[in-house]
């Protein structure tokens, strides 16, 4: 009997097992607790009768059964047949093909367990393949499972089947490194899940939730997480570090040290303290009642607009200035488009007493005068980028050139999840505080960590990376990335990179970018100065290409309308970048009980002139 099932469930495991074998010290008794909707309940049986398995499956609404005894292939076949029988439907008036399909999909899965020792004969699996969904490999021991010892996983090198398997038996914190190595090896190609049990118990049936959480977090990064960067900064085919040799020493130094520095307790302490006392975190997760009524769904706003300097940008600049200090750098450079990242960088440089040079396109300097003034007041030198199109991408080029010219004492604070590895991953990790907070705030408000959807706007994509971060590898959470369509995706004046971009190299990263057929980078357009980047962070390129994220593009007109609606319904003036995320509410229908979190990445003060001109206020 698991005595703290609900706490364990809160860790968002994919499956929870309930043992229906009475001799076990952990046998399940009593009532099934209410679990998170996406957790699958698995009943564990040892040579039980088919009748008993079916009875428990119905009684506890099990999503699957795990057979841990000496059940035969024929047993599995009969059980499978019984389990896939359509359940009696009370009203059979509309038993459409669709609902019949659903039932087939939702039929409980069969997991056949095997005890593996050095002499295990893998050829016996063949007979089971047609009648089981998964295999489970456990250590051969005195009991059918739960012996607490690990078997030699290298035996799986010669796994002859393509049936996905659960790896079980003695997996615990002490063999974390081994399990990571195993998961990274070809032998794990068909490893579907890890089965954790006795190694995480303080007493039979009582799980140490802290140890479990720590283990799950680590095991999910990076080996099991397909949507995070690998060690060379690749997200699928995107990312990497396509840099001239002149930048190599700086980028290599950062790559070698960033994770280590971020893990230092003194770094974390200083970072968290500044986020709390200086930035004003945690930023509220606000239930937008009137907006929810308007769209008949449950909408929460993550209020990054309430941060010091008025947007999420400062989360990253705080992190990077602390990184720069620990790397012994004396001089900070940054690029900025609309000026938000420039202001956030100038702010932290003032805080730390460091020299700050911000590159900004000559055209942007003219149209963002208030932010230029802010940066100057904060002590930064604003250098106009005079090359190319004289906007954000050229400011980025100039910052990179500065870094080439000053390779020893300078740190480049990139403002988004773009650039060469490790920047996209480092910036995403600093911004991850957004989704870390959403998790516990939602747990307080809704009793669950996972929303049904997270929505965020994407230029380079740093606020989106932060809002998605904790949810990347939880497929039950819908990820919606919103790009700026400008005057329309096909108008020739757009910044919808996922729709218009092709694979290429920009600012040291392989990603999707807007370019001519000849590979020249083109100039994007959006009414929002923070979204007109011709590329997109490699994480987002991968989310798009893999289908993990849903990408929606929003025109200037729809974004402006959505921004005004938020003012009128909730009394919040959003940044025009964030307004794009709100416009999704008109484009996509959510269910009344869906929990939808929209990342309100910045406030609209900086955009007042644009709002005034647009609405003739």
């Amino acid at each position, binding site marked *: 009997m698991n005595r703290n099932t609900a706490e364990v469930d809160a860790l968002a495991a994919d499956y929870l097992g309930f043992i229906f074998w009475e001799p076990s010290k952990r046998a399940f008794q009593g009532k099934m607790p209410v679990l998170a909707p996406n957790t699958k309940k698995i009943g564990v049986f040892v040579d039980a009768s088919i009748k008993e398995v079916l009875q428990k499956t119905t009684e506890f609404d099990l999503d699957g059964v795990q057979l841990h005894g000496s059940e035969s292939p024929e047993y599995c076949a009969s059980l499978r047949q019984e389990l896939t029988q359509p359940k009696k439907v009370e009203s059979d008036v509309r038993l459409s093909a669709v609902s019949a399909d659903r039932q087939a999909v939702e039929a409980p899965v069969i997991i056949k367990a095997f005890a593996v020792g050095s002499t295990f004969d893998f050829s016996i699996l063949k007979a089971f393949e047609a009648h089981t969904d998964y295999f489970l490999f456990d250590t051969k021991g005195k009991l059918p499972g739960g012996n607490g010892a690990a078997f030699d996983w290298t035996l799986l090198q010669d796994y002859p089947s393509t049936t996905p398997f659960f790896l079980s038996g003695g997996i615990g914190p002490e063999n974390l490194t081994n399990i990571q190595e195993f998961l990274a090896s070809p032998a794990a190609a068909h490893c579907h899940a890890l089965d954790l049990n006795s190694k995480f118990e303080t007493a039979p049936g009582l799980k140490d939730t802290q140890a479990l959480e720590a283990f799950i977090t680590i095991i999910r990064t990076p080996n099991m997480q397909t949507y995070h960067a690998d060690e*060379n900064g690749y997200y699928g085919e995107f990312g*990497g*570090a*396509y*840099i*001239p*040799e*002149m930048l*190599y*020493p700086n980028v290599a130094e950062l790559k070698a040290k960033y994770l280590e520095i971020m893990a230092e307790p003194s770094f974390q302490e200083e970072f968290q303290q500044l986020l709390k006392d200086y930035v004003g975190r945690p930023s509220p997760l606000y239930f937008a009642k009137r907006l929810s009524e308007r769209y008949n769904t449950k909408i929460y706003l993550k209020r990054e607009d309430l941060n010091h300097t008025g947007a999420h940008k400062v989360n990253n600049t705080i992190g990077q200035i602390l990184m720069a200090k620990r790397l012994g750098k004396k001089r900070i450079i940054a690029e900025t488009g609309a000026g938000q990242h420039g202001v956030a960088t100038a702010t932290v440089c003032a805080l730390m007493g460091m020299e700050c040079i911000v590159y900004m396109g000559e055209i942007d300097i003219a149209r963002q005068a208030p932010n230029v003034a802010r940066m100057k007041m904060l002590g930064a030198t604003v250098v106009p980028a*005079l*090359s*190319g199109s004289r906007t954000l*991408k*050229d400011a980025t*080029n100039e910052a*990179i*050139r500065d870094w*080439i*010219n*000053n*390779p*020893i004492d300078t740190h480049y604070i990139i403002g988004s999840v773009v650039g060469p590895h490790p920047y996209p991953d480092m910036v995403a990790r600093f911004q991850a505080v957004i989704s870390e907070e959403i998790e516990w705030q939602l747990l307080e408000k809704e009793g669950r960590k996972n929303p049904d959807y997270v929505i965020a706007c994407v230029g380079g994509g740093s606020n989106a990376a932060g809002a998605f971060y904790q949810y990347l590898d939880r497929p039950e959470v819908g990820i919606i990335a919103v790009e700026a369509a400008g005057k329309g995706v096909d108008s020739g004046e757009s910044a919808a990179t996922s729709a218009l971009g*092709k*694979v*290429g*190299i*920009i*600012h*040291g990263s392989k990603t999707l970018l807007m*370019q001519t*057929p*000849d*590979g*020249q*980078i*083109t100039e994007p357009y959006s009414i929002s100065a923070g979204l007109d980047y011709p590329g997109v962070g490699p994480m987002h390129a991968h989310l798009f290409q893999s289908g993990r994220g849903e990408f929606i593009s929003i025109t200037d007109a729809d974004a402006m309308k959505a921004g005004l609606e938020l003012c009128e319904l909730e009394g919040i003036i959003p940044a025009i970048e964030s307004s794009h995320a709100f416009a999704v509410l008109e484009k996509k229908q959510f269910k009344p009980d869906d929990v939808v979190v929209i990342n309100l990445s910045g406030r609209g003060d900086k955009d007042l002139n644009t709002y005034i001109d647009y609405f003739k206020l």
Partner: protein
Amino acid sequence: MNRIVSKLKENKKILSLYFTAGYPNLADTLPTLKQMEAADVDLVEIGLPFSDPLADGPTIQNSSTQALNNGMTTQKLFEQLAGVREHINMPLIIMGYFNPVLQYGVDAFCAQCAQIGIDGLILPDLPLEEYQEHYQPIFEKYGLANIFLITPQTSDARIRQIDAASNAFIYMVSTASVTGSKSGFGPEQTTYFKRVSDMGLKNPLIVGFGIKDQETFDTATEYTQGAIIGSACIKHLTENGPQGIDTFVKSVRP
């Protein structure tokens, strides 16, 4: 044997010029090459223009922008160079950024280069690791030399790695800078040239960045086999077009 390798076997200090294809006028590519050949230039880097050349200073950036405005494209360059080997015997290298090559298709690009008689490529933002993992077999299939850069900050270990992966010469960036931005060499450059020269690498060293006249050429080649002039050559083309390159060359290497 690859023309670059043969040239480097000659017992002389190599003078190499860089120019942007299609600059100052679209049709200037071939006339410029002919002028260079006539002026006894040893090696030429033909710049394939790119919209965002982040290792270059303003002179080369502006020439690239102008060339693109003139209508230069990858395809156009290949057309202009189609019969180049009827007139030109110098080793030819195409220098550009990786994205246009990627869009053309790395295999197709290399195949075209081989067909035309291009001898090597310099792609500063294609790093060693990516090259070795994905593209080296393609370069080798078409007999193209790939030339890597090193800088004063490159560690000895990495220089040795780059030396092992190189098969023509090593492009030695003189100072920590983008192209065209430093004036004159100081003792630190000389120390760096000598330090790397003393490493006994298998590939010759050719210095680039900051070479613009006889003095800098002589300093750069004291410990190395040659030097590359880029921005100063572009300035000449801006003022004179392809005419008078021989005078420019004589001013550097009398």
